[in-house]
């Protein structure tokens, strides 16, 4: 009886076996990495906007308070995007003829709002109340990163459910005094943060991690 297979097939067969084993593990690792990479989460990815607005310039360099434009952040469920009027309150005076701001002037003229691309867009099945987070001592920078250093706006955090849970499970590791909410540079060493955090949890009546991770807290 003649040989059916070439001797090299032994090596090929063994390689296939190992390849299959590594293939399975590799696929899982790939899947894991992909779902957390900017491809999926858009962290650090700049969105194309109708107007190239720089938070770095307005907030960082000029020092305009967050609340000047996002007026409802503290009490509303939704941190609003300012209407064209807010922009024009300054830009009717300065850079009034800048070609970069033409869409803003057009919007004012036509009454059609600017169509900003939302950078932080949670899915509809996740209930999110912006005001409560501010009231309980979550700083802007905790979720939005150093906006004052962003020439164009991007997501600083992945906004995945596991990321949300990270804070909901241990709120004390992220809370800060209400007076420091809008302070972009606020940070404490870990031990001190835990101490302060625990005090704030008590003071602000923040619920325990167990209740904050109930399904119905976010999925109502």
């Amino acid at each position, binding site marked *: *009886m003649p040989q*059916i*297979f070439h001797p090299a097939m*032994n090596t090929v*067969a063994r390689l296939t076996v190992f390849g299959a084993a590594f293939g399975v593990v590799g696929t*899982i690792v790939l*899947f*894991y990495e992909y*779902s*957390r990479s900017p491809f*999926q*989460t858009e962290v650090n990815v700049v969105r194309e906007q109708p107007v190239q607005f720089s938070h770095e310039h307005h907030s960082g360099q000029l020092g305009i308070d967050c609340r000047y434009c996002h007026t409802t952040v503290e009490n509303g469920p939704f941190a609003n995007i300012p209407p064209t009027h807010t922009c024009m309150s300054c830009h009717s005076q300065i850079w009034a003829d800048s070609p970069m701001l033409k869409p803003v002037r057009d919007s004012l003229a036509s009454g059609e709002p600017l169509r900003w691309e939302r950078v932080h867009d949670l899915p509809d099945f996740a209930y999110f109340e912006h005001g409560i987070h501010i009231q309980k001592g979550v700083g802007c920078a905790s979720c939005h990163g150093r906006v004052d250093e962003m020439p164009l706006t991007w997501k600083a955090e*992945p906004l*995945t*459910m*596991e*990321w949300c*849970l990270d804070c909901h499970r241990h709120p004390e590791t992220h809370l800060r005094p209400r007076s420091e909410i809008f302070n972009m540079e606020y940070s404490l060493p870990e031990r001190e943060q835990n101490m302060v955090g625990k005090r704030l949890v008590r003071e602000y009546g923040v619920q325990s991690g167990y209740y904050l991770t109930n399904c119905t807290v976010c999925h109502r």
Partner: protein
Amino acid sequence: MAADANIGREQSGPPVLSPGHSFATITDKISAIVLTRPYQRGWILGFAIAFLLTNVLFVSVAYLFMRGVGIWGVNVPVMWGFAIVNFVWWIGIGHAGTLISAILLLLKQEWRTSINRFAEAMTLFAVACAGMFPLIHLGRWWLFYWLFPYPNTMDLWPQWRSPLVWDAFAVSTYATVSLLFWYMGLIPDVATLRDRARGRLGRYFYGFLAMGWRGSARHWHRYQTAYLLMAALATPLVVSVHTIVSWDFAVAIVPGWHSTIFPPYFVAGAIYSGFAMVLTLIIPLRYFYGLGDFITMRHLENMAKILLATGLLVCYGYLMEAFMAWYGDNRFDRFQILRERPRGDYAPLYWLLIVSNCLVVQALWFPAMRRRVVVLWLISLTVNLGMWLERFVIVVVSLHKDYMPSRWRMYFPTAWDYATLFGSVGLFLALLFLFVRFLPAISMAEMRELVHEAEPVGHGGDSR
């Protein structure tokens, strides 16, 4: 066989292998089905019909994926319609193969040898059909992988306290282990086919599958141990699978579902329907391929006895359910089991189920009936029908009258329900036709062993 005076009787009864066979004739006869006379008119016709039916399945599943489960008759409160009925039916059928292979191997029952391969293949294909149904029954079927644990960005795990998750694990484990067991049994046989194939393509195909098996004594040594251990593992596994399927129902507190006898009674029912399906398929196979030498009357009779035994266990389950419904203090159970089933909207189906599962099978008490192949085949068909009806009664009748009369509603299957059911039968048959065509339907290595054991003298005039 052992009862002392039985030894004399055993010789007079039909043997497990007709006399006059040698290693070579067995090998040649079985491998010829695959190698030398593959495309017979009957095979082509049968496969064509099965393939057509399979396409019915493909069309109905494609349409389902386009339109959603609304094309079926499911509604509120009958949310588990045909899909779950078919699932339980198929997974039950998928129990006989492993039972024959594993349990009868452990019990040292020689008669299993010529039917185990076929029964295992049947198991695999039935499990494939079964596994499909819960999947397409999901509203968002493309998210089925949520049933399995994986490191997702939601930080969520499957709900381990839900029997539906256990089911996902049980069915996929069962499918995997059955596949491994089946493939392991096939290795020596595909090696035979590799060595006997004449075409280049066949040699490569079977050569790949055989993985270089050469019948070495060292290999056989480990192979046998591993095979026996696989049998020992598969036996509790097969029991666990239908137990978990029964928990899908019994863990819920729906009247008619929440009954403690469900685990053993589902297992008995699964074996019952599985053996019925083996008989349904193997009787024509034996006839058309002339395998009467290997699948003898002894096999058919033994399977008939198992059919009777498991049928009685199933009846015991019905009896206990009815008695405890009366005896127990749950009035919803009483309403469901004592009134809705026998006298409610679906009463004709219930009585048809009782006739086909409990009454018809009693004929098998009589040896004359067990030995009449046509009768046996008809009974097996009846049991297949009866076991399907049983699942229908459990699923639909229990659901259609909820606790609140405002939610009472009838369930009527649509044409798409039927198309999916019959299509799945087509898929099952098509896979079986392909199996019979491309792989040895009877284990040659084990048959040779049987011949070897029958040969030597000194076994007290054993004529086998």
